[in-house]
């Protein structure tokens, strides 16, 4: 399924990311005394252009720069060199429980979290019923978040993120929130996204998942793109993988 709509929604141009390795936090004195730092290039001259509606799987070993690339696309991290251009709302489903406040109720947290994801108050007003229904929190919605179980928090996080109407969705394949029932529900919701014209970028070790959902595969090794192409990249990445 190639894309009739050629609109570019994401462009990474010569992206590099350097991390300083700090074994411990530097103090002010150390900063002025010793100037040289160990550095580590997590990404090296990455060039990726993504069109609207593409489903992309990013694969690679641990430490190949997969997470860094997602953070840079999400705008959470700033590249050392290069330019990131995105069109539309980018929502990451990586850290679902982040951004909640334990003392506030589920209801209040929906507003806070929704706004952090870029939603306007009016937008949340319209969707709050759906979000509560999707998260399946019932009477707990008026209880402070510290009374929630882990699963409930993740469910709420997931429900808010998918209702934020993302144009570009950043995913981690290890996404598991709640019980079987909710996992089924979230999988269905994601499938819905996969069918729509949404742009989805998945970071994963699960090659089967990529094969069944993605149209394009990017293989990263030590911060550089080794392969960028169709599903044949999977075979090149792991010859032992059969499908």
């Amino acid at each position, binding site marked *: 399924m190639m894309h009739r709509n050629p609109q570019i929604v994401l462009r990474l141009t010569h992206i590099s990311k350097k991390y300083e390795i700090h074994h411990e936090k530097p103090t002010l004195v150390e900063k002025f005394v010793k100037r040289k730092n160990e550095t580590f290039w997590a990404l090296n001259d990455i060039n990726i252009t993504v069109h609207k509606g593409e489903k992309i799987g990013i694969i690679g070993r641990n430490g190949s720069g997969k997470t860094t690339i997602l953070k840079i696309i999400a705008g*959470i991290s700033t590249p050392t060199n290069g330019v990131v251009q995105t069109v539309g709302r980018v929502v990451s489903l990586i850290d679902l429980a982040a951004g909640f406040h334990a*003392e*506030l109720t589920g209801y209040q947290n929906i507003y*806070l979290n929704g*706004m*952090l994801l870029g939603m306007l108050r009016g937008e949340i007003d319209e969707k709050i019923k759906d979000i509560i229904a999707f998260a399946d929190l019932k009477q707990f919605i008026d209880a402070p978040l510290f009374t929630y179980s882990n699963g409930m928090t993740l469910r709420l996080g997931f429900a808010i993120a998918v209702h934020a109407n993302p144009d570009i969705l950043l995913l981690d394949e290890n996404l598991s929130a709640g019980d079987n029932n909710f996992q089924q529900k979230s999988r269905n919701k994601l499938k819905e996204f996969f069918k729509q014209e949404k742009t989805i970028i998945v970071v994963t070790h699960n090659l089967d998942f990529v094969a069944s959902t993605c149209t394009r595969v990017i293989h990263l090794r030590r911060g550089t793109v080794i392969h960028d192409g169709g599903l044949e990249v999977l075979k090149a990445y792991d010859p032992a993988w059969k499908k």
Partner: protein
Amino acid sequence: MKPRGVRHVWELLWGMTEKELRARYKHTIFGFLWLVANPALQMLIIGFVFPLFVQNPIDHYNYYLFTGLLAWNFFSLSLSKATPSIVFERNLIKKSIFPRFVIPCSITLSNAINYIAAFFLFLIPIIFLHTLTPASLIYFMSGLMMIFIFTIGASLLTSALNVKFRDVNFFVQAILLIWFYATPIVYSLSQIPPRLMWIWHFNPLTSAIQLMQAAVVGSAPPGSSMLTANIVTIALVTAIGVIVFNRESRYFDDWL
């Protein structure tokens, strides 16, 4: 970074401020009254001890003291809470892209709302003092603006620097202790020998608090040289705060 609606930034700032206000007095019995109780206790103690040492007492000393203490508490609470705020709220930083300044600014804003509410309570006894004049409102508003802008600027600077250099938080705690005595809260500038006056020229809170005291008990407002020096310092600190925060905020994630 893509431009975001101004409306969204305001809504987010307000949402975060609401969160601060809601979360602070949760599970406390007296809630908001703590805000007045704290400076009231300070006032009682200082109001008892200080006149024992100083011969020339200030008119309506307890009111004078309380005015300064309320404003000082706004400043010191905001700064000491905002400085480590980026580090404490690291899970927000890692969640999504949003203008980072809402984190320290929402703390200052929530403290400002608390402060204004406390001041309104304080206004009731002030009215019976019959010291309020038409100029009071102007004095108070100018003092409030000065201290508010300075707090925003200073907290942007310290919160941004604290991400890389965690010493900044300790430094702020230490400097606040000294700063209290370098601000005319328990004493009046008229008690300071002129050869030392330059110290207060560097302290932007001097004029701000003098203006508020002038509004409440009709003490002398700051002179023009003091006012100019303080305004210049406020502008400078705020400009540096905005620039540093802007530059550093892009790399917060690397250090958290």
